[in-house]
């Protein structure tokens, strides 16, 4: 099907095949579509066997980092300890809205994936941490979990297997940083969402101090299809010359584009065709100028750079950016890149948990400078200051929020230098016109001359 528009013929809909189909939301509807067969199959297998299938399938984390899922699961051994699974449904990366649709349209698909993964990592309890703003997804997921308990799919004797699997929905309360896995664990425990220093890694000491696996919604929703159809089936999606990136991936497309929405393609799909063919290209009468292909934390590309990219982990890396979460943000010729980059830095300044000084100070300082330049009060020295702050914000903090704020500034300054220079020229012209108001904190006019 597809939502909000029909699937394009060049898509490979697996996770999105029931988007827009309200019947798939109910237990009866999900079962009629083959739902819970994979879980039934998995519960008859040894957990390590499931770990092996997922490892062989090449599935990598779809939340942004791309860590091999089967490998992550294999860190969980039958050691007799209490284990936990946490499903990361705190989807908050600007540009990304795929997990929202998975939960809205196929809530049982996620329940099945979570139950299957919990069993595969020797956990009896799983928590699905959903961002607080996602009221409809929360409602759909709660309804699906209740149905699954009532039908004996969850609980003390999951699907008659004799195994206990409990799933609980946990609502966040507004904090981008809680999508970072250790911050998510803190938040779930009833703490402020500050990321934790690693090590210890979650597989050693995670939620409530116990071995924990954290997976993204899309990753977990893919697992039942892999168990059901096998690793070889999953590997058919992808380009022949890149075995490192296989399977299908949901891309959310937004901004200045003809057909915004979610698209599911085989990894390795050519981005040029994706942008112009599937998504319909620029709005009428306009032209695309820039693209952020993997959520707001990845480097910005010019249209030309993006058009040569292949849509997988290595393909995006080859053009100097990242696949990230698959949130594609499109900017057209009407957009002021300086203003939009300033808006992004403001997002990170707002969302910094403030525990590392480089991030707390750096995101705020960067935002002040970016907003000043954007308002036409910048100086050319500001560029060096921005780059120097960015340098000091990267790779020096507990998590990568700080790096994510620096990324659009550094790539934007490099690729859209002309627009930055034009803003400085506005500032210079103001110097030539005495009497114009100067905002508080604006640099000395003498130094700008």
């Amino acid at each position: 099907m597809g939502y909000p528009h029909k699937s394009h013929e060049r898509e490979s809909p697996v996770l999105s095949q029931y988007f827009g189909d309200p019947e798939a939301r109910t237990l009866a509807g999900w079962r009629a579509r083959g739902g819970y067969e994979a879980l039934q199959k998995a519960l008859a297998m040894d957990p390590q066997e499931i770990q092996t299938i997922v490892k062989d399938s090449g599935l990598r984390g779809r939340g942004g980092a791309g860590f091999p899922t089967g490998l992550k699961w294999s860190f969980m051994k039958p050691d007799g300890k209490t284990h936990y699974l946490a499903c990361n449904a705190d989807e908050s990366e600007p540009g990304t809205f795929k997990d929202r649709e998975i939960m809205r349209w196929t809530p049982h698909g996620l329940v099945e994936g979570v139950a299957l993964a919990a069993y595969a990592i020797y956990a009896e309890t799983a928590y699905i941490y959903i961002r607080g703003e996602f009221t409809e997804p929360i409602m759909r997921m709660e309804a699906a979990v209740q149905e699954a308990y009532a039908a004996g799919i969850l609980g003390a004797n999951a699907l008659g297997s004799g195994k206990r699997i409990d799933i609980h929905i946990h609502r966040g309360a507004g904090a981008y940083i809680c999508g970072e896995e250790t911050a998510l664990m803190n938040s779930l425990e009833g703490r402020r969402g500050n990321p934790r220093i690693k090590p210890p890694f979650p597989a050693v000491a995670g939620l409530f101090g116990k071995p924990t696996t954290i997976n993204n919604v899309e990753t977990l929703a893919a697992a039942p299809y892999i168990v059901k159809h096998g690793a070889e089936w999953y590997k058919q999606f992808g380009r022949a010359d890149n075995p490192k990136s296989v399977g299908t991936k949901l891309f959310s497309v937004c901004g200045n584009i003809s057909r915004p929405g979610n698209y599911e393609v085989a990894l390795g799909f050519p981005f040029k065709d994706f942008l112009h063919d599937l998504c319909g290209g620029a709005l009428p009468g306009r032209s695309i100028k820039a693209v952020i292909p993997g959520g707001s934390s990845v480097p910005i590309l010019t249209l030309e750079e993006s058009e040569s990219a292949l849509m997988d982990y290595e393909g995006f890396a080859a053009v100097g950016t990242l696949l990230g979460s698959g949130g594609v943000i499109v900017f057209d010729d009407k957009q002021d890149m300086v203003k939009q980059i300033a808006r992004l830095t403001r997002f990170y300044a707002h969302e910094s948990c403030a525990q590392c000084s480089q991030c707390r100070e750096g995101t705020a300082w960067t935002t002040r400078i970016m907003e000043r330049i954007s308002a036409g009060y910048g100086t050319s020295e500001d560029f060096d200051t921005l780059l120097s702050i960015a340098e000091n914000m990267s790779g020096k903090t507990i998590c990568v929020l700080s790096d994510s704020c620096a990324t659009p500034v550094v790539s934007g300054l490099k690729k859209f230098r002309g627009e930055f220079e034009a803003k400085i020229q506005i500032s210079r012209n103001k110097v030539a016109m005495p009497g114009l108001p100067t905002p508080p904190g604006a640099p000395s006019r003498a130094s700008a001359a």
Partner: protein
Amino acid sequence: MSHGPSASGGALQATPAHTHHDVPHVPVFVGERLTELHTIMSRYPSKMAALLPALWIVQDVRGWVSEGGMKEVAGLLALTQAYVKGVVSFYTMYHQHPVGKHFIQVCTTTPCNVCGAEDVVHAFLQQTGCGELGQTSADGRYTVIEVECLGACGFATPIMINNAFVESVTPEGVSRVLAELD
């Protein structure tokens, strides 16, 4: 088990959403709500993990989370009031002050911003009479704020009114959105 709130003789008064800070706190967790909290607590190995859900219940019932609400939750979960306040103030969705009957959040982060979200904000500020972000209109009906990424970027501009999402709002569509509110 920590002490439960004394259920003021069953004479639980409905507290309007817009009360002053110095009004004595009427316990939230009595009867069914206390049972609900205990059910939630049974899902976690620690009492503290029920903190976010407990705060949600307080806000759902009272419209915001007062000092009294924090104190009550702290008592039930064996936490200090200062700790609870530290958590409440970390998350953007808990209101530490009363807000308008219709709490309107407009996403203006980059993906929505490039689709004209700022014009949507201005239209809401004008038509609700709020005038300024974060201010509640004189009649107590509306509070409008800008919010960071609502995770519905393909449906620019998404807004949230209390717990409900409205997608693809344009400046021209604002009057219709407001007309549909009770």
